[in-house]
């Protein structure tokens, strides 16, 4: 095991210890907030939403503060905190943020207040907002955890609030959807738990010393036999594949999305699907490089199947919300393809899509929610000509939809482009097939848009209200991000890239005979100045 830059950066993490309160704040503010909400008497109905909004906004502020304080030249973990939890098993509350998790944390911070602001609890506001806060705390925990057990704890704990959100506040077949969601994820987690315990035990047997579940420690000193590593990786991969979701483990997703309340769908798409892809990077490529190289063709194939299959099935949907849900399968396929192309561009693209998909699909679900609220149907066939009665909504929908399609200049484009670029360099034929998915995405979304917003305005559609100014204002931050990150993704890339390069470097050092492919012309390299390159090298 070469001393990768990750090791070096852990040492340097002490420098940022002044901000050690950041990550505990990210997790504890919403968690304690949930307790506060639980203590408010049930009849004070008017308070819950406001309190939840305050709590989530405060958390978002901390997340943004973390982004501002983030040192973009540092490839390793920042704001690191570490406290012993269960010392006899070597489990510790170890947290840190690097370039990969930074924007997922910020995304989580932004999406929750917006989802709360844009929607209302249909009934029982107290538990609704309390669960949302628990969900927020759990998501923050997954993205910052640097201990396998802590990661697992948060990965599992988010299930419970989501289960209640779908089951109690959902529509239609909510009980079926909630149960399916819970059991699918738990099925994956069963594999993950056994895998992570095996990994820690085998690692201890290989290197001696005390048992440890520390991700950084295991990443840097991995000494488990290749075969065992591969089995462990398979365990992790099943858990993450359910969460992403990858074909053929995706069938919980359309049900969960369709039946969840709007805020639930938004958070599910924007945040929770990312837990899986994030896990693939952190516990897959970074921690188990050899098995990642070994399994890359299979996972890329599943990603590509997801892209094509998701797109085709989305085309066939008659329910607008289900259509958006299947589009997530396709988008997340691009993320997996990018990650397992094992190139700097691919992984960067993957991270970019993860964030931007959150913003775009979150917006789409909000829009679909608005339509449903007004028309009480999501059937595409019953909607038509909405453009005439709701021009502002049509405009907003157009923008978001085009971003989802991947139109250059909007935020869907850079990530998808980089992921495909990485795929072309690393695995050409997968890239070729995946590119057709871009065309299919244009097909299903444009077609749906055409059916819903164009054509004659018939029946009840004539009575539909347009977006209210307040609804528009709530959407505005998301729309602004869609445009901004489309035109100017550089600030994001600057912070993501050092960490991704460190990971790729780690993979190259760890796996004999593996060199990451690079595209012939590197458009990302031209994006930033020479000084950063030098800083990177010094760091190594």
């Amino acid at each position, binding site marked *: 095991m070469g001393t990768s830059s990750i090791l070096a950066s852990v040492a340097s993490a002490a420098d940022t210890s002044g901000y050690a309160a950041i990550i505990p704040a990210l997790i504890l503010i919403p968690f304690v907030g949930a307790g506060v909400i639980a203590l408010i008497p049930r009849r004070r109905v008017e308070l819950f939403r406001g309190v939840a909004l305050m709590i989530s906004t405060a958390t978002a502020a901390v997340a943004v503060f973390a982004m501002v304080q983030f040192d973009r030249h540092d490839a390793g973990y920042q704001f690191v905190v570490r406290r012993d*939890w*269960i*010392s*006899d*098993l070597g489990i510790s509350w170890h947290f840190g943020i690097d370039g990969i998790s930074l924007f997922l944390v910020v995304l989580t911070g932004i999406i929750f207040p917006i989802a709360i602001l844009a929607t209302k609890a*249909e*009934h*029982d506001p107290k538990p609704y907002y309390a669960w949302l806060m628990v969900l927020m705390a759990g998501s923050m925990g997954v993205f910052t955890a640097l201990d396998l*057990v802590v990661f*697992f*704890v*948060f990965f*599992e*704990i988010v*299930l*419970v609030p989501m*289960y*209640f959100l779908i*089951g*109690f506040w959902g*529509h239609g077949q*909510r*009980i079926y959807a*909630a*149960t399916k969601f*819970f*059991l699918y994820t*738990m*099925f994956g*987690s*069963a*594999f993950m*738990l*056994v895998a992570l*315990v*095996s990994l820690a*035990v085998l690692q201890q047997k290989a290197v001696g010393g005390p048992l440890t579940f520390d991700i950084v420690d295991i990443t840097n000193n991995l000494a488990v036999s290749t075969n065992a590593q591969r089995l462990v990786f398979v365990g992790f991969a099943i858990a993450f594949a359910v969460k992403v979701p990858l074909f053929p483990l995706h069938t919980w997703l359309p049900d969960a999305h369709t039946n969840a309340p709007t805020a639930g769908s938004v958070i599910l798409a924007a945040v929770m699907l990312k837990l899986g892809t994030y896990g693939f990077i952190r516990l897959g490529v970074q921690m188990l490089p050899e098995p990642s190289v070994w399994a890359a063709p299979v996972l890329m194939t599943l990603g590509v199947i997801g892209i094509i299959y998701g797109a085709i099935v989305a085309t066939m949907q008659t329910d607008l919300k289900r259509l958006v849900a299947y589009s997530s399968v396709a988008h997340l396929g691009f993320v997996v393809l990018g990650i397992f192309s094992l190139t700097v561009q691919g992984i960067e693209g993957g991270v970019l899509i993860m964030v931007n998909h959150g913003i775009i699909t979150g917006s789409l679900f909000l829009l679909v929610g608005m339509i449903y609220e007004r028309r009480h149907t999501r059937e595409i066939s019953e909607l038509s000509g909405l453009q005439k009665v709701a021009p502002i909504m049509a405009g907003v929908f157009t923008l978001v939809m085009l971003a989802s399609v991947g139109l250059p200049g909007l935020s869907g484009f850079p990530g998808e482009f980089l992921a495909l670029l990485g795929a072309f360099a690393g695995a050409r034929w997968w890239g070729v097939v995946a590119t057709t998915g871009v065309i299919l995405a244009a097909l299903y979304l444009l077609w749906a848009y055409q059916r819903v917003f164009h054509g004659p305005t018939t029946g009840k559609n004539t009575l539909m209200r347009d977006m209210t100014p307040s609804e528009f204002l709530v959407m505005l931050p998301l729309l602004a991000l869609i445009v901004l990150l489309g035109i100017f993704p550089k600030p994001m890339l600057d912070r993501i890239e050092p960490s991704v390069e460190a990971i790729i470097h780690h993979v190259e050092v760890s796996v004999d005979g593996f060199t990451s492919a690079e595209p012939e012309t590197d458009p990302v390299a031209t994006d930033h100045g020479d000084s950063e390159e030098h800083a990177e090298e010094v760091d190594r």
Partner: protein
Amino acid sequence: MIGLLAHTPDDLAAGNFSHSVSWSAIAPALILMLGGILLLVIVSVFRGKLSSGFFTAWTVIVAGGAIAAAIPLWHDVQEDGARSEMAGSVGLDGFSLFVTGVICISVIFAALFLDGYLRREKLEGPEWYVLLLLSAAGGVTMASANDLLVLFVGLEILSIAVYILAAMHSRRVTSQEAGLKYFVLGAFSSAFLLYGIAFVYGGTGTTNLVSINIFLADNVITQNGLLLAGLALLLVGFGFKIAAVPFHLWTPDVYQGAPTPVVTYMAGGVKVAAFAGMIRVFVVTFGPTYVNEWRPMVYALAVLSLVVGALMAIVQTNVKRMLAFSSISHAGFILLGVLASSDQGTAAALFYLLVYTFMVAGSFGVATLIGRTGDGRQNLGDYRGLGRSRPGLALTFTVFLLAQAGVPLTGGFMAKLYVIGAIVESGMTVLALIAMLSAVISAFLYLRIVVSMYFEASTDSADSEEPAELSGPPVRIPKLAGLALGLALVAVLALGIVPGPATRVAGDATAELVPEVEVPQ
């Protein structure tokens, strides 16, 4: 009789020896037993002048006293090491003291739930509490037995009291049926156990666990058919008591029929004692030498319990039956700790038993309250709408159910993590995977109850807030039952969030077989 049991051939050859009777070593069992008998005396003296609250308080104080008596012994053992007492028939080690504590906790919970239950059912009387304390004394004896016959005596004291308790609800036919079923099958299993003890005696020439251990370490038995048959029969006996598949058939019927507070003790304390006996015999005594012989058998029991328990649980409609099958599945998990046959495995099993006692006490405690007068409302439908009519109770039950499913930040998760860790450490990763997948199946069962409590009563639209009422009379929560539920809730969460202290204690609670130090005359 003790002389016959305890003396190794060496002792007999040496001739000169004496045994000091160290009463303090068996103080916890003595306190429980005398507490039970004394209660009976007090009741007969002050006939009719005592309220039923007194019985509960007495039981709680006696059980608490037994725990208090165990604490100085624990410190002794931790400092000076384990020892054998009472002519080598009682083993005083961290393990037996830990189990003593867990059994007493289970007794306290049962007593707290019994109080309100007996008032509600108009069955107040001291007998329940007396039997409970006597049974616990048997359990403690069993956990600290260093001799197979002492173990058997403990098991009988434990069981006979529980047979009666199961049938104590005199107006319910199902309770009578449960008591009879439990008695017949229990007696049957005791016979197996006794038969096994006889075979082991035939194979090794002694019933003392210390002597068996030494004998097997020193001698290789070439014709070990007798011993193996003995092991198999012992396993059948223990299998009945811990309700492992395929010896589980009595469990759902008995749990369903028996008075629910008694079930908190049956599923908790009785199982804890039976597992303690099993670990003492299989892991500690036969572990070093015969682990490869018994491991395949226990492996099969574990897999069957995990899978059958989980699968059967999800097709039930009666909540007590569901919980009965889920307790079978839990037994499978605890068997993993036994299978590991290591100090870690034992510590994991002990920690699991501790967490399990709280979870099961809480779950059956809720079932006690929902059963309402007559103790009969135990169908899934009887839980419908609990989330609205009794939000606190529903939330508490949800925590117990999620803990049983192994959701993190509850003790249930930590217990599973420890057991999985121990079994992976022993190289049985496949079994670990089977266990976790069976936990997913079980999760479906717990979700069904949650669905019934919350989702089926809620309405889709915002304004039509029709309060979905529970069918039947309202659910009342007696103060003591509420206190018990609160304690169990705090314990389950605390063991999940700060498991460190409990796991350290479980880690120190190693079971050891130490020959008695002879005092020459």
